[in-house]
Every structure is written in C-alpha cells, then in structure tokens.
C-alpha cells in the first residue's frame, strides 16, 4: 500500500490542471467545475473507459474528493447514506454499461425513499448510441421508472444547465434521484464555461407553502378532535421539520407515531411518543391509530407496511394529510383534509392557528396501554439481539448516526433503539434493500465528520456489499459495524416459522458463513467477536476507542429470536401478535 507521503509526492508530479483559468474547457472539465459550483465535497465513484477523463480532472482536487468504492452499488448506497445523514445531495460517478446497471438497485432504493442523489454515468459517443457499442446500455430507459428525472446530454454546451437542473430537481419538492448520462464525445469536446445562476424549468414548480384555507380547516378539526394522532413519515425529516413538529405536538398535546423513515423526527423518550407503527410497530401505536378519531399524516404515504388491510386502517378516523407531493395524497386512502406543501412550511403556518386540545383522557388511555403492552423481550443467558441494540444506544449516545440493513435486525433497531434526533436513522424503507446498511454508513460517516456512525447489519445482508470493507479501511473511517449474526436469513426464517410450517427452505447460513473476524482482518480492519451477554457492553466500549479504522463486531445472538409485535401481512391492527 502507498503511504500518505508517497501519495503526496506523486500528486505533485502531476501538473495542476488549470481548469479555473483556461478560456475553453472540455466537457469533463466543465463537469468538474459544475460540481464545484454545486458545492459538492464527495463524489462516490468507480472509474472506467468513458469517465477516465473526468477522473483525470478530479485527480488532484481536494474538493470534490473521489471516494473509490469497490462496486458501483456500494457507491450508490454511500451517496444515498451521505444524503440521508446530511440533507445534502449525494453524488455518484460511474462509467457506462455494466457500471451504470450496477447502480440500478441503489437508484430504486433512493427513489422509494425520496432521497436526493445525482448519478453521473458515462455513455458511448453520441454517434455510437444505438449501435450496441462496447459497454453501451440504455441506462436512461432502464432507470426511467425509478428516477425523478433524467437527462441524456447531447451537446457540451448543455452540461452546465443540465447539472444545475439535476441538483435542483434532486433536492427540491419531493426529493429524489436524478440521472445524467454523459456521452464520451460530449465529455471531450470544448466550449466556454458559464454556470447559470438560476434554473427555469417550466414544468416543475413544486408547491412549498400550503393553502392557508386548508391549514385553517385542519386547525379547526384538530381543536375538536378527542383522540387525535400525528402519523409522521420521512417527509418531516426531508423538510427538516422536527422542530416544528415537536412544538406542534406539545402545543396541542397530540401523541406522535412515526413510520420507519420518520424515526428521529420526534424524540422517542418524549411521553407523547408512541414509537413506530405498522407491521412491526408497537402495540400501543397501532392501537392508538385503530382508535383515533383524527389521523394527521405528516410527510407519510400510507404505505402497505403501515396500513396493513387498507379498509381497516384507522377505521374511526378523519384524515388530514400534509405532503409536498400531491400524488401521495388520496393514493391509497381517501383523505378528508389534503394540504399540499412542505411539512416544515405547513407546520409553521399551522402552529399559530392551533389550540391546546383536551386530550387528557386519550393520553391517559394510551398511558395505560403503554403499561399493559410494553415493548418486551425475554431476557436470557444467550445474547438477545434487542439487548445489543439497547447496549449500542447506551454506549454510543443520542448523537450517533445509525444505519441499518434489512431484516429482523432492522426492525429490532427501529423498535428498541430510542431515536432522539433527526437524520440519525439511515435505513432502506420503501425498497427494503439488503446490502444497503454498511455502505450507507460509509456515506453517512463522510457526511458527518466528528460523529459516530454505527451500522447494524445481518449476517446475510452484510455479505451482499461486504467488499466495501476496503473502502471503509481506505477512508480510515472510525465506523462500527454490528453484525447481528443469527446464522439465518432471519426475517425470512421468521415468516417460514410462522406461515410456512417451520420449513426453513434455504435460509440457514450458519455453516457457510465466513469467520467475520478473519474476513475483516484480511482487509486490514478490526474484528471483534461477542459470544456472551456480559461482553456486549465492554466490547462496544472497546470498539469506541479504536482510531482510524472501522471495527466490525460479530455478535453471536440467539438464533431463534423473532420480531414482535407483528401484524401479519394483509391483516389489521387488532390481529397484532405480541
């Protein structure tokens, strides 16, 4: 491996590119200048034929800095995690063909959760497009249903405007992934650099502020409701509305339940917090929604993992729905009081209009439910995964950013970790992408210098993107990766246990799993193993002390633990299994 000194020396040997002084710039240079104009600090990427000139221009720059991943899917999840943790636009840069298709799962992940990521893909030369040229793929066509918007740049003069628009579209309105396809000849042709100051997209004017008449009506209904519930989703985080939400809940005394993506929007140690709702939500949040007379949806979209059987969801309630995307409103459930606008702006306008509601009896009833149906798990000699989650919170504190993969561990984290602050929860909700958690933690860590990042992953999902250990080591990131190792594809095993007569078809990984400690050590990372309950906290504390390297902890947890509560698929709140 090169030492830092050697690297510096090598850098000096290469002539500085004068992209800031030259009259005419190549497409690649214009692209790099445009990224600088957008304030991009990190570009998650992987080189290849068409984008070599772009990588060349980025070679000596400290900003943007290329973060070299080991698989383009990893780069995409890193950019996504970066965006979730920081609220800034994540950026990916990869070459054409197979590199572009490697992004697809990640783009769909960002699309489902409305995460702003700009993807720059190389493309074969404009005259070769359509000829089945080497490494040609119609990536615009492939990603059309999973991008907010996409561009094929056909002229070097269009690069600046396109990049400006791509970033603007990605981060405004309902955020989402944008793809910019850059043909080889466009990257090589020359023109002058002029970065536009403003965007003008006639067909794109997202509604930021809610209709005041509608907001007034909402305030009126809220005042008369006897059993109201705030149902908060990722939109509250995307629009940075946690402060306003907190004020609203306390001013009105309305309890708050969040979706998986809404975790962190409202502090879970607050007496008004009901935790997460839905398939694996708390008993009391699901019961509160079942009994409520007014459900105030804030940046949430009535996803089927939340509603279960749609006709039986909140059967006694009227609905207020605040969302920036009109298409989210009345999609699954007919809403009584729609308000189109960003959550933050609408809550701001709503705040002075609401009164303290008399929810005393309602909160008392909920308090009783919390006592009689608390979140629980059986304590035992074996390491309980829920205990590991609690220990992580205890050792790492409220400010830590948690990313998770997909499966049982994700649900345990959502239930047993008490999220306090927004943007501390990085998880793939809508698509449920295994392999997301670890690379997303790398992105989150790069976005948040000085803050601890912990990835909670399953032994299955971790192996889907484990190659990124190299990236984490290369970046000297002090992240902790907690592998909740149950030797199974646990969530699938749980369904097999409950719904398929315990026929564990192809879900046991135990005998073929690698030795995770040896595996990460081979990459130069730190590996630790925990096999006893009383080692959980001390090992986590030890991991917190490790400097300049990622730590991977193999937690050998109880293999047969299940996630409860659970509302079986397609069932209703009252069918909940505790």
């Amino acid at each position: 491996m090169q030492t830092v000194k050697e690297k510096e020396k090598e850098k000096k040997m290469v002539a500085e590119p004068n992209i800031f002084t030259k009259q005419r710039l190549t497409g690649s240079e214009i692209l790099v200048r445009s990224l600088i104009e957008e304030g991009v600090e990190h570009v998650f990427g992987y080189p290849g034929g068409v984008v070599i000139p772009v990588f060349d221009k980025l070679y000596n720059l400290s900003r943007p800095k290329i973060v070299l991943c080991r698989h383009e899917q990893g780069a995409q999840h890193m950019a996504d995690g970066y965006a979730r943790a920081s609220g800034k636009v994540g950026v990916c840069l990869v070459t054409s063909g197979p590199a572009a298709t490697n992004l697809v799962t990640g783009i769909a992940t960002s699309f489902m959760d409305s995460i702003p990521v700009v993807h720059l893909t190389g493309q074969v030369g404009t005259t070769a497009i359509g000829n089945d040229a080497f490494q040609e793929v119609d990536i615009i066509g492939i990603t059309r249903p999973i991008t907010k918007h996409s561009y094929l740049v056909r002229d070097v003069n269009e690069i600046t405007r396109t990049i400006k628009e791509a970033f603007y579209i990605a981060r405004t309105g309902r955020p989402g992934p944008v793809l910019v396809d850059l043909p080889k000849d466009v990257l090589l042709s020359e023109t002058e650099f002029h970065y536009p100051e403003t965007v003008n997209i006639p067909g794109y004017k997202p509604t930021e502020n809610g209709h005041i008449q509608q907001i007034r009506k909402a305030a009126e209904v809220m005042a008369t409701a006897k059993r109201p519930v705030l149902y908060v989703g990722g939109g509250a985080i995307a629009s940075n509305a946690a402060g306003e939400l907190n004020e609203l809940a306390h001013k009105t005394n309305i309890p708050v339940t969040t979706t998986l993506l809404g975790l962190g929007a409202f502090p879970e140690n607050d007496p008004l917090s009901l935790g997460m709702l839905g398939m694996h939500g708390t008993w009391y949040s699901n019961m509160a929604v079942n009994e409520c007379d007014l459900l105030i949806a804030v940046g949430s979209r009535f996803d089927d993992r939340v509603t279960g059987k749609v006709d039986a969801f909140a059967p006694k309630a009227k609905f207020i729905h605040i969302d920036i995307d009109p298409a989210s409103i009345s999609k699954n459930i007919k809403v009584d009081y729609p308000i189109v606008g960003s959550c933050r702006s609408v809550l701001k306008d709503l705040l002075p209009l609401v009164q303290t509601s008399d929810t005393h009896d309602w909160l008392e009833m909920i308090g009783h439910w919390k006592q009689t149906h608390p979140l629980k798990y059986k304590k035992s000699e074996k390491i309980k995964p829920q205990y590991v989650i609690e220990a992580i919170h205890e050792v790492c504190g409220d400010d830590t950013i948690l990313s998770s993969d997909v499966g049982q561990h994700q649900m345990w984290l959502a239930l047993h970790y008490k999220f306090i602050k927004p943007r501390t929860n990085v998880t793939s909700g809508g698509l449920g992408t295994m392999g997301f958690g670890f690379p997303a933690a790398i992105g989150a860590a790069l976005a948040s210098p000085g803050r601890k990042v912990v990835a909670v992953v399953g032994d299955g999902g971790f192996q889907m993107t484990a190659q990124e250990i190299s990236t984490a080591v290369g970046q000297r990131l002090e992240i902790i990766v907690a592998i909740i190792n149950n030797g199974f594809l646990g969530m699938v095993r749980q369904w097999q246990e409950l719904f398929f007569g315990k026929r564990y078809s192809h879900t046991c990984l135990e005998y073929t799993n690698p030795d995770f400690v040896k595996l990460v050590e081979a990459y130069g990372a730190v590996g630790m193993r925990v096999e006893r309950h009383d080692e959980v906290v001390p090992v986590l504390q030890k991991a917190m002390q490790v400097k300049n390297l990622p730590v991977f902890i193999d937690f050998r947890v109880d293999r047969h633990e299940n996630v409860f509560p659970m509302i079986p698929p397609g069932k209703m709140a009252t069918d909940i299994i505790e």
Partner: protein
Amino acid sequence: MQQHTISLLVENKFGVQARIANLFSGKGYNMDSICVAETENPELSRMTIVTTGDDMVIEQIIKQLNRLINVLKVVDLTFEDHINRELALIKINCTATTRSSIIQIADIFQAKIVDISPKTLTIEVTGGHSKVQACINMLQPFGIKEMARTGIVALRREYTGRSPDWSSSKIPA
C-alpha cells in the same frame, strides 16, 4: 369506470413520450389511445390520451402526469365542453357490384374515397369516436382488409360561457 379524455401540453423533447408511456405501463393504467404532435409552438407538443378508470385512478393519473418534469399542463376534458376528432383510413374489399353501396355509405358519413383499386376502396373518415365507429360498423360486412386509426385528438371549446379550468395544471392559465 369511465372513459376520460386527458389533454397534455408537454415539452417537445427526446424521450418525453417514452416517459408518459412508461408511467402508464408501470402503474398499470389503461391507455385506450394516445395521440401526439407538435403544437403552434415547436418547443411544445400536445398529447391527447384516452384512458379508463374510476375516480381515484383518474385522479392519480392526472397527479402522476403532473409530476413529470417535462409535462407543463394536464387537463381532464371529459367534463369540459370540448371538440374531439379521430381519423380512420379503412381499406375495404369490393367488387363491381358492391362498390356503389360502399360509396353511398361513405357519403352518409361525409367520408372521402382516397384510393381505389379493382378489388379495394380506401376511405378516409373523420369525426367523433362514435361516428367513426358507426362508419366502421357499417363497412364491416363488406370485409375490411386493413385499417389505421389515429386515436382521439381534442381541444377545449373557447366560448363555453365559463372561465377555463386549468386547476390541475402547474402553471396558471
């Protein structure tokens, strides 16, 4: 379930039609017909889509279309006073004996004979969907050899006595 005629103003750019077709296929919406061409402004195209669905589906279709960046205006013309027209080219088998009956039918529909051969006649008929359908039904017994229909194009009537309702569009009229 009702048939709706939706009129769109879209940017006349590469890939826009594909985006719209993709939306319909991806979301499983019906597309009974789609018709598109440049408008008086070469930067814009007008698209007329005929689709079928219940109220909630139609509401979603309009909202989803509005979400597309290249779409400037979406109007559901179904309950507006509007003109709609379709054109069909119908090639019918004929013999010396049936030829005059076919021409008579064409006359009734104010259709034109646009091509003739010893064994066929090609008729061009325009009108609302039901008129074109009626003409086709009348010609069916003679044996339709080939047919091409444009699908509906539509525009809102100007003098309806009401102010135009562009409420579902993104930019004010």
